[in-house]
């Protein structure tokens, strides 16, 4: 199995989720993140002093998939999250030794 992790723009989450469902993925874990990169942050002003917040809010998605589905899921995420602007994010795939479903104790592909 594989773990596909995606760092995307927060306002693309709904589109990506729809694409994942279309691709037959049933579960996703989502969390907040922030990123540095080519994309610049923004400037805030307090009492006349400007300062730069260079962390840009991002959303992290994690999807466990069968080895066979990793490439399709990656592509599905990339195309759904794409806006073409700097800061669209990254998707990466990591090998997974084992997965267990807590509710049932099942392991492997059955646990997805």
């Amino acid at each position: 199995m594989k773990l596909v992790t995606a760092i995307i723009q927060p306002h693309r989450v709904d589109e990506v989720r729809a694409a994942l469902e279309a691709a037959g993925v049933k579960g996703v874990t989502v969390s907040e993140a922030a990123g540095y990169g080519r994309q610049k942050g923004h400037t805030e002003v307090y009492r006349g002093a400007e300062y730069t917040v260079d962390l840009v809010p991002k959303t992290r998605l994690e999807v466990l998939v069968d080895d066979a589905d990793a490439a399709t899921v990656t592509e599905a995420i990339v195309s759904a999250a794409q806006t073409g602007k700097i800061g669209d994010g990254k998707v990466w795939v990591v090998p997974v030794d084992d997965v267990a479903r807590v509710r049932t104790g099942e392991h492997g592909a059955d646990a997805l």
Partner: protein
Amino acid sequence: MDSPNVAWLLTSASLVLLMTPGLAFFYGGMSRKKSVLNMMMMSFSSIGVVGVLWVLVGFSVSAGDTVGGWFGNPGSDFGMQSIFQSGVDATELDGSEFDLILAAFGATFAIITVALISGAVADRMKFSAWLVFSALWAVLVYSPVSHWVWGGGLLSSDYLFADMTAPQDIAGGTVVHINAGIAALVLALLLGTRKGFGKEPMRPHNLTLVMLGAALLWFGWFGFNAGSWWEADVFAAQIWLNTLVATCAGMLGWLLTEKIRDGKPTSLGAASGVVAGLVAITPAGLSVSPLGAIVLGTIAGILSALAVGLKYKLGYDDSLDVVGVHLVSGLWGTIAVGLFATDVNAFGDAGLFYGGGASLLVSQIIAAAIVMVYSGVMTLIIGLAIKYTIGLRVPEEVEVSGIDLAEHGETAYEEAV
């Protein structure tokens, strides 16, 4: 005072008491998440400490039998026992029943003046040191200065101004704002800068709380200013209206300065401009016309907006800008009385722009200067005494991990994880 309006004074006193929690929110919102409780506790504890002390002895020092114009005899009315007794005993209304109300009203002024100072010491002052400081400063600085200005002491026409135009300070430009502002500066210098000052942004952790604080301050300030006339009549209305428009103008002046300098008018600027306007009109509410109040307030907003940047240049860590707002706008308002006081002034004398010549202006400056010197020196003495006994400042680790946890064993907000 022949027709005191008790209802308005009770209302005003309640309004002024609300200002100190208002200040706690104003300052607390500007603090970082890890020090908001300590910031608020400095205001709340001022209410506790100064309130009790005022009844015990502060009132006597402020309004008791004068000792050569310097201060009231601290033993003249311990625990307000005699003013209480004569007030509730009075079978006929002879005015003595009114004294009790004024004594109560006075407590709320002492409280907020002390609390104002705390904005300069954010994130780093030991809570025990603050408690001791607030007690000593209330009795040794606030009470005598209020005696000078309002208790027939040094700065009244019985003493220094016997042969000069009497200065005008209806609600405390000198006693409250210049006094607290200079104390804040001295204490900030004694404490030193926070770790990261000038490098880290240290931005307000919650601007809605800042706005709430500004709103409660404004609301309460109507009692502060218009209550200080002690009557619910046309002059109270004059002060009320001036307190409204000078503050409106202060907000606009600050926002305009930001728009020109930074490109954007901020909500912190609006809240700060409100306070600057309120500070500036405090001594002037009874002296100026509504148009005068608009000019005075606008300039206060501009001056304070420019002044808050000074601390970075000069290197003192007046954390939440007590100096930039209260000292600067307090001085401006006090001086502006000498310029804009009208010729229908209930106090008597007009200012420079209204045909009164420069004599009122001179008196205003003298009064302000004397308060600055006394308050500055006394604050230095009290601060040094604390520094070399129990110490003023928390350890550096505490500043990093947060003073709330170290000094109060709490964090302000429930965290999910």
